């Protein structure tokens, strides 16, 4: 597969994805958008892990296993995040971080 590919492409891709995610997480004011941005960052991590696995340790599935764990945990995290969003929404009817200001930043 992909004879012309080398790891730097993957690093570049994941780096870009990570940067986009980080930017989104820092600049978005909507809680769900931030959660999505975090997912983007985690996807970048997974790309890295799988790509490195392919090039560094093709016989052992270290990176793949790690990636699966990341996916699982990320799901739990997002689930929890959404649960809190729902609870907060029930109380305040907003998901915008700027309006969540009972505690000063």
């Amino acid at each position, binding site marked *: 597969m992909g004879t012309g590919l080398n790891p730097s492409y993957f690093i570049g891709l994941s780096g870009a994805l990570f940067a986009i995610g*980080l930017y989104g997480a820092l600049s978005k004011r909507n809680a769900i958008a931030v*959660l999505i941005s975090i997912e983007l960052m985690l996807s970048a991590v997974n790309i890295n892990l799988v790509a490195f696995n392919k090039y560094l340790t093709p016989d052992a599935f270290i990176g793949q296993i790690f990636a699966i764990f990341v996916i699982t945990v990320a799901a*739990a*995290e997002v689930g929890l995040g959404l649960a809190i969003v729902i609870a907060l929404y029930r109380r305040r009817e907003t998901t915008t971080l700027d309006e969540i200001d009972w505690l000063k930043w």
Partner: protein
Amino acid sequence: MNFDFSLITTELATVILGLTTFVLGLVLPSNSRKGLGNFALLGLIIVLGIAIASWSNQGEMLGGMYLVDQYSIFFKILFLVAAILVIFGSLRYVNDQVGNHFEYYSTVIFATLGMIVMASAGDFITLYLGLELMTISFVVLVAFRTFDGKSLEAGMKYILLAGMSSAVILYGLSLVYGATGTIIISEVAQRVSEGSPLLTVGLVMLVAGLGFKVSAVPFHMWSPDVYEGAPTPVTSFLAVGSKAASFAVLVRLFVGGLPGIHEQWAMLIAVLAAVSMVVGNLVAIPQTNIKRLLAYSSIAQAGYILVGLVTATEAGIKGVMFYAFLYVFATVGAFTVVAAVYNKIQSDEIADYAGLVQRAPLAATVMLVCLLSMAGIPPLAGFVGKFYLFKTVVEGYMWLVYLGLIMSMVSVYYYLRVVLVMFRDEPADHTPLEMGSSVNITLLIALVATLFLGIYPGPLAEVANIAAQSFFP
């Protein structure tokens, strides 16, 4: 894949305890769940006993993925002690302010389990799992008062920022994996090479992400909000356990895994420590809410502890461990007072602590002692801890010593403001506050431990020393 289950008795016991508590909570009718807190407490004490008994039981599992050494056992004991104190001191608070929820206790136990796994992590996957188990449990705990918007909001902020920091840590880990081709920390140490750009970027990411977890400046924004909004016992456990566990990981990762590029991260950590000490202490000064004040103070404490990491020597790690342990008592003591007082007067404002010494002499005294211990005033434990920490950086980082000690004296200023209110002012209401015996016992333990560790730190220092040698065989 041979499992030596005797190595992980502590972990297994914690898991079983957590699940049992959970199942019992599901099975028992709600009116007979009152004893669940006591059950969890008793279980944790037994687990603590197991952990202490396994002190000399060492080994590694799954090819280095899970390490059981004295370093990790030391931290396990620390976490368990913290969990026990937090639960014991907050039985009544939880009942009155959080509600009779069985999930609370099992979640605390699972958070403890996460910390334990973190301390024992020998590779990145275990590390990440432990970290997330702890973080997620803490998010649940922080947002536990679902009827209280502040608590929910704190939970919200915590999960967003914790998720972000986890992602940053993970990215760092993935880059380290890319640079070395392994995720076993001890193998990383052998394969680390100078000048790898991947490694440098990964290192920065790791410092940033873990800086988040230990709430070091400039990654500290979340902690005052979360500390303020969370139910107070949770805040206390968060300040103690999560921070100590993150430090455990930080040490394991940097000293155990990346000693080869020590020059690259020493300065980073030193700067982080310095900024944390300065900002934490200075921003704490104008705070009017006791929990926010303690939050900023704990940022400063993180700065102190980071100092011990700078040199990556045995003495430094010993300092970190010693300080982390004494910090447990000081913080739990202070927060237990805050929780107990809140339970009585429904306020966390410092102004409402007026005349506390006349209404609850023990609570006020413990608060005083704990705050001063954090400030590093002898003969309290904090002084000895700072001595251990700062003595490691005298050679080479003298400026850090000056900064740290002067800042800790500055911190006395805002601690004393609390003391001023508690001791000088006349209370608006003279009725004594009945805290309940469990709170009083917790406070006494915190008081005695803080004094004892300050006056006779020898044994703990020795234990910490043995534990620190895990890195320097």
